[in-house]
């Protein structure tokens, strides 16, 4: 019995050795050709090294459509470059830039103190590049009302669960329960929203809030759920929802998130969107050129196409 077995194992061991050798040869040849090609390009011309570079970007799902569209335009313009864009939220954008996992982060809010401390501990400096203007729009399902006007505090009370029925907000609104939709903690959109609407009044989001992981998910939920309220970035507003006009306080004018109102920061929840790097990218590197591309007229055109606002040519108010 033993002899039979050892005979069998010799045959299998031969097969395995051959397979292993094939693998090794395969890997080695792949590696060899790889180094061959890359050394060729380096020798070719120093200045165009960025044309074969690849960078990765991750972070805010609000900024994602801009970065994605710009990456595609950029790669079409300069074939050979490779830019990978993934979402994950502003928190991920900052943490991965700090850890050096990605080259560029996307953020829809400035860094938190914890993130700044983290960066300091790891000895990196965060560089923020504003690339577009955005507004967090409070939106409701059309069943609530076709033109809804609320003060920031009223919105806060809705999201804090102090108002639970629409008729609590205003007797003229339907006597139906409010379906509150929020983003997950850490989301830049949620951060901005709470900074303007919840924190000034000391409110906290109600337990009964429905959490959604992205702007598109909030959009779908609002579109399909009667008597729902939520908030999305400007680029995610559709005709199937009603945008709420907001006033800073009772008695102040109610303002819609129109282009002029956001650019002049009259709309209460206006914000910048950022790209983030851990050190200043080397001049002429792919990361540097990509950021320049987004800030160029061509890139800003894409920003507008995606439903956001171009950076004002001069600082607002000047």
């Amino acid at each position, binding site marked *: 019995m033993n002899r039979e077995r050892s005979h069998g*194992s010799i045959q299998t061991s031969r097969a395995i050795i051959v397979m292993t050798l094939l693998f090794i040869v395969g890997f080695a040849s792949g590696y060899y050709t790889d180094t061959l090609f890359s050394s060729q390009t380096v020798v070719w011309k120093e200045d165009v090294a960025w044309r074969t570079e690849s960078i990765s970007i991750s972070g805010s799902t609000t900024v994602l459509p801009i970065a994605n569209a710009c990456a595609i335009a950029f790669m079409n313009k300069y074939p050979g470059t490779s830019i990978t864009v993934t979402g994950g939220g502003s928190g991920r954008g900052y943490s991965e830039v700090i850890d050096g996992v990605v080259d560029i982060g996307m953020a829809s809010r400035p860094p938190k103190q914890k993130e700044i401390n983290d960066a300091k501990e790891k000895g990196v400096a965060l560089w923020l590049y504003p690339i577009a203007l955005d507004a967090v729009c409070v939106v409701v399902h059309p069943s609530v009302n076709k033109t809804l006007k609320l003060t920031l505090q009223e919105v806060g009370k809705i999201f804090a669960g102090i108002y639970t029925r629409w008729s609590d907000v205003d007797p003229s609104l339907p006597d139906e329960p409010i379906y509150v939709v929020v983003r997950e903690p850490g989301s830049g959109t949620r951060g901005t929203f709470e900074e303007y609407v919840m924190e000034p009044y000391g409110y*906290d*989001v109600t337990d009964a809030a*429905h959490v959604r992981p992205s702007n598109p998910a909030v959009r779908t939920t609002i579109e*399909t759920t009667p008597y729902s309220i939520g908030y999305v970035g400007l680029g995610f507003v559709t005709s199937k929802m009603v945008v709420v006009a907001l006033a800073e306080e009772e008695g102040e004018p109610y303002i819609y998130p129109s282009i002029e109102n956001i650019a002049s920061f009259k709309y209460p929840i206006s914000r910048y969107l950022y790209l983030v790097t851990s050190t200043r990218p080397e001049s002429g590197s792919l990361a540097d050129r990509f950021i320049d591309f987004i800030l160029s007229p061509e890139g800003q055109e894409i920003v507008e196409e995606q439903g956001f606002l171009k950076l004002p040519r001069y600082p607002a108010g000047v």
Partner: protein
Amino acid sequence: METRSFKKGLPKLFMHLRSQPIEFVLFLCASFSVVILLLMLLFVVMEGSLAFTRLGTQLILGQMWKTNSDLYGGFPLIYGSLMVVSGALLISIPLGICTSIFIAEILPFQLRDPIKSVIELLASIPSVIYGFIGVTFLAPLIASIFGLQSGATAFTASLILAIMVLPTIVGVSGETISAVPIEYKEAALALGASKWQTIRNVILPLSKSGMLASVMLGFGRAIGETVAVLMVAGNVAMVPTPPWNYLAPVYPVTAVIAMQMGEAAVGSLEYSALFGLGLILFIITFAVNTIADVIVRRRPVGRSVQL
């Protein structure tokens, strides 16, 4: 008994490894998954330890999950997971076991394999597709049937999960039914038992343990499912009122982890609490899988059967 066989087996193994280099390579390959499992467990325990020391039982029993105020009470989440999974099993156990009996005993021989592979095909559909169908089709349907504001409820998630675990339950319990020795069936039939009597008095008692195991495996599959559940469960971190209200939204553990992990600052209490939840999930599935394993091992074929 297990440890004794270990004591006997290990020296044997090392002798083989010393004499046969190629078997050593195979040994390395085989130990890979075991090592990975141990490393993962270690990692989860390490990352979650902060939450367990800081929060203690609060992580399991606490009622409030509020990241803003650094409150990490996992009870509503664990409750949500168990609620969704038990709902799914309530639907899929009768459905799955009836299907497997039908396939193994009643369906003509020629049709068995095609039908089986159709059911197995269910397992190969990516879970995000289930979630997608749940969001676009099932949720609105449930909302209109029950007159709800939104169809994203525990019931919707259970329904989707029930379909997802069906192949596991049908597959494993089908195996145990076909493992019942043909002589037992023939004996029963020869004694004049009808087909249904044979199924009820011979086949079911003999394959009981295998069916239980299939349910446990289904449980493991269901409780770990993330994407589909995240899309249809509604995600409200509260125990529904009343607690058995399946038409209310819930926030299962896997959905919370998937949703918040990307945003949690590494090393924060939130991050650790998420790992802690992961560990709890790990322990639950591990326990259930172990029980299933033990049950499958003592398959009582060969016991006398009372007709």
